[in-house]
């Protein structure tokens, strides 16, 4: 007799996973970061506390902390090795980061939220 845990695990569906970008969590006291393209990765937006602060309008009232989520999307097909090279290049440019989160599509559907 399978347990409910076994039953739940058996429902898992296989989905095709495609690497499409990286969310970088950058710590800086110098305000909204600016990036050139790094290898095949292009910065798409930057958010602070979940609110988009680049590109576009930023309210002067908006509270910003020293921790920015910077979304880099791949402009070509990429592999994990490209992420490693990206992180190395970003660090060499002097950016201090707390975490990196790979962005994957699952069966072509984004597995990550957008920013307001």
């Amino acid at each position, binding site marked *: 007799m399978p347990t409910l845990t076994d039953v739940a695990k058996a429902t898992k569906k296989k989905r095709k996973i495609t690497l499409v970008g990286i969310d970088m969590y950058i710590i800086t006291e110098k305000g909204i970061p600016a990036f050139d393209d790094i290898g095949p990765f292009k910065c798409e937006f930057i958010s602070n506390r979940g609110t988009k602060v680049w590109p576009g309008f930023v309210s002067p*009232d908006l509270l910003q902390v020293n921790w920015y989520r910077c979304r880099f999307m791949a402009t070509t097909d990429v592999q994990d090795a490209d992420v490693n090279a990206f992180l190395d290049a970003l660090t060499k440019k002097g950016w201090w980061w707390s975490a990196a989160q790979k962005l994957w599509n699952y069966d072509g559907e984004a597995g990550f939220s957008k920013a307001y």
Partner: protein
Amino acid sequence: MGTQHVVTMLPGEGTGPEICEAVRMVIDASGVDIKWEYEDIGLDCLDKYGTLLPDKTIQNIAKNKVALKGPTTTPIGTGHKSANVTLRKVFDLYANVRPAKLIPVLKRPWDKIDILNFRENTEDCYAAIEHMVSDEVAQCLKVITWPGSYRIAEFAFKWAKANGRKKIYCVHKANIMKMTDGLFLDAFREVAKKYPEIESGDIIVDNCCMQLVRNPAQFDCLVLPNLYGDILTDLCAGLVGGLGFAPGANVGDGCAIFEAVHGSAPKYAGMKKVNPSAVLVSGVMMLRWLHETAAADRIEKAMFAVLEERKHVTYDVGGTATTDEYAQAIVEKMHAKA
């Protein structure tokens, strides 16, 4: 007549326009001098502007710094950003103020409830940072910051002091979420030191829920992170009679938007049968924000009297009056008392 105030009116959609007209009639009859500037928001904007919140509306609110908003609905699954969330983000409306006060004529099991909730409105799990970190694991980042926590606590203590409130409790789950809720609680305690005249303390969120339904009269002011605030403010609204009488305000350093928290009830649109009380009491809150206390008191007393008489009340409270008839009865009651 005293100072003229310029206020942005956002009627919204569904029953919003008819509610806002009724509310405007009552506020205008209260003796306060308000110049209303109407702007579009919500579903009806989509065809005209391609967005739920046009730039023109944003610019008008930025100019006037105070707005009264009717209900709006966010379409599910269309990719359009919620107008409410966008307003909060654009103007950094970090304080969601939700009073829960017992309306005497609405029969409830309690003698007294007068709770002032201060919900942090911009952080927590609402930062919209979510990832599928594997094909079977989803993750949402709970973002709590020191300045975000400090300013909502400071806002709450300032408001409480200005309005003669005696006690503020911080609601949290810092026994489990030691970093995030711990930071929120630390900031609250830091601010509390500056207000020794106000009693302060903290309570774990699950215990707070139980205490609220057992003995709500024990609470005065609550300061809450976003998610607990979302849930407990509706719980408090339920204690005093539901969302139909629940006012709300979203306030930032630059502006304040007053609004009911209920939906736009599109199936009743144009029928003029819905109860405008939640927007009206939000308007009363707005008048107090504008230091028009006498007008606010007049409206509140007249509204309670009309509800007490039950002659001209809407269907949801057992009457047959239309939205306009209820509003007109409040106006007549104000004039009768004058």
